[in-house]
């Protein structure tokens, strides 16, 4: 069975008399080790879908299972545990806590996972090493560049050893070169076995992934594999 199975997902927002179909019947499946981009114009429902994939929101209708968890049927506490154990989030604006050092930021999910301090420190230090920030562990976010902050955020996303990494516009706040660096890091993580879903409106970012799902008005309008040569272009 695939890591993600979505069947006829719907999400409605009621605004007074009007009903917005943020998702209007979306079905797809994403296997383990996939590296997938979700693209589409503004308001097409990308973030809405990401929120449901990440267990931050539940669908109005339809069914979605992620690593065996039926998202629509879970309690708030179960969803919190699901997010902690199964999902790693990477945000456009990094969302690091400014008072914490890079190391402490990476430790944060493990605090909620009940990991003991010693193990927490070791794992966080290892992850920062892995994203190339072994020398910056005691720095606070304000002492780091945007690209470095996003690396810390990626290390944090990996801290819970998640089955799925979700990134909403991960390069949106970065200049082109730094964005390419971050995509390279994702590529490397995917090679090492991580499943990654990236939301973007940038087609260069989409071409760097293995597969592109295109949305419009809450529906999937195309779903295709990217050709390898284009991926290599985006790398450079």
């Amino acid at each position, binding site marked *: 069975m695939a890591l993600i199975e979505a069947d006829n997902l719907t999400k409605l927002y009621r605004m007074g008399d009007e009903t917005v179909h943020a998702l209007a019947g979306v079905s797809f499946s994403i296997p383990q080790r996939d590296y997938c981009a979700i693209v589409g114009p503004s308001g097409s429902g990308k973030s809405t879908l990401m*929120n449901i994939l*990440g267990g*931050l*929101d539940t669908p109005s209708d339809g069914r979605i299972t992620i690593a065996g968890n039926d998202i629509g049927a879970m309690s*708030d*506490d179960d969803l*919190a*545990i699901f*997010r*902690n*154990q199964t999902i790693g*989030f990477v*945000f456009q604006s990094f*969302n690091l*806590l400014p*008072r914490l050092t890079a190391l402490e930021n990476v430790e*944060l*999910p493990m*605090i*909620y*996972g*009940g990991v003991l*301090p010693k193990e927490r420190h070791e794992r966080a230090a290892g992850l920062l090493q892995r994203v190339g920030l072994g020398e910056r562990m005691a720095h606070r976010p304000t002492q780091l560049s945007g690209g470095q902050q996003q690396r810390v955020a990626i290390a*944090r996303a990996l801290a*819970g050893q998640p089955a799925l990494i979700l990134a909403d516009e991960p390069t949106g706040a970065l200049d082109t070169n730094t964005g390419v660096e971050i995509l390279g890091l994702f590529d490397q993580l995917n090679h090492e076995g991580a499943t990654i879903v990236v939301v973007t409106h940038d087609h260069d970012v989409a071409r760097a992934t293995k597969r592109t799902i295109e949305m419009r008005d809450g529906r999937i309008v195309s779903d295709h594999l990217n050709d390898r040569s284009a991926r290599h272009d985006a790398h450079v």
Partner: protein
Amino acid sequence: MMRTSDLVASAGRALRANPMRSALTALGVIIGVASVVAMVALGSGAQAQVERSIASLGSNLLIVVPGAMRGGGGVRGQAGAGGGWDSLTMDDAEAITQLENVAVVAPSQRARAQVIANGLNWNPEVNGVTPDFLIARDWEVARGRMFDETEERQARRIVVLGRTVADNLFPNMDPVGQSVRMNGGTYEVIGVLESKGQSGFQDQDDIVLAPLTTVKRRIAGRRGRGDTVSQISVKAESEQVLNRLQEDVENLLRQRHRTREGEDDFTVQNLSSISETMAQTTGVFTALLGGISAVSLLVGGIGIMNIMLVSVTERTREIGLRKALGARQSDILHQFGLEAVTLSVAGGIIGLVIGVAGAWGMTTLFNLPLVVSPLNAGLAIAFSGLVGVVFGAYPAWRAAKLDPIEALRRE
């Protein structure tokens, strides 16, 4: 689920991030707890003082005075309304001696006289007493001796001085063996009483004791002549029989004076019941003071709630992030609740220290005993903790209920 040590570390970090704000927020609780502690300590000190000074009059003691007492309770002395001043007699005292449970009966006659010695003069209360008076009042002679019954009956010209009188008339010498002049007569000082201190506003040591017979014949004037006495002190054998003895004395005197209840020409004061009444009164007073200052604690609590609400608004994004990373509602609730409780308990501890210091200052100023029980101190801390829980609950609940998607979108 978050570990407790991580919870504490996180609350501490959040409070240290804004040290000035945390300090000012705690200040509300500090003032509240300090004023409650100081007021209650002051009230308890007053209460202890009242109890102590009444107890210093003598234990298990009934005091019979002529005249009816209007109204109930209170140490009002001879509030002569019904009968005259001369309703109590030596025979009454003799009769009371025959009652059961009586330890000692000491009739006495009060007078005022100018006392002269060494070219100094003083105006104390002169009390004609029998030797049993000291037993009834639990009083001891500090130097010299008390006169005995023979000397009393013989109306000898001898006196025992209270501490205040001795200090004022014989500032630099031992009064025992010296003589004083009263009403034109010369009296030998044979003893000095130990100090009893103040009872209310009255200095109990401003007194001269002389044999009852002597006072009646030579000092008291017209009023003291004949068989009457101004007071009879009755000491019961024990605390348990005191109330019964009071009734017996009342009934006996009613019989002897042929009066009915309500028309008495005498009053029997029961010092332990007066002491109880006074203790109750000061207790109510203490509770009132404590209650009023508890209002300031309430205001401190509202300050905490206010700042916690501000903090939740400011940290909306942080809360959203924490939830996205796996914090449960209970984790967020505990984190913010603990911040509020930490503020209020820290304020409570500092407030307790300041309150005790303030109480110490005030009791020293008013010459009261300092009463701070560990129970009250514990209660103050516990209560400030409760304030943190109560006023931190709503902001923490608001934080816990935040929708993570909304919260993350917030700037």
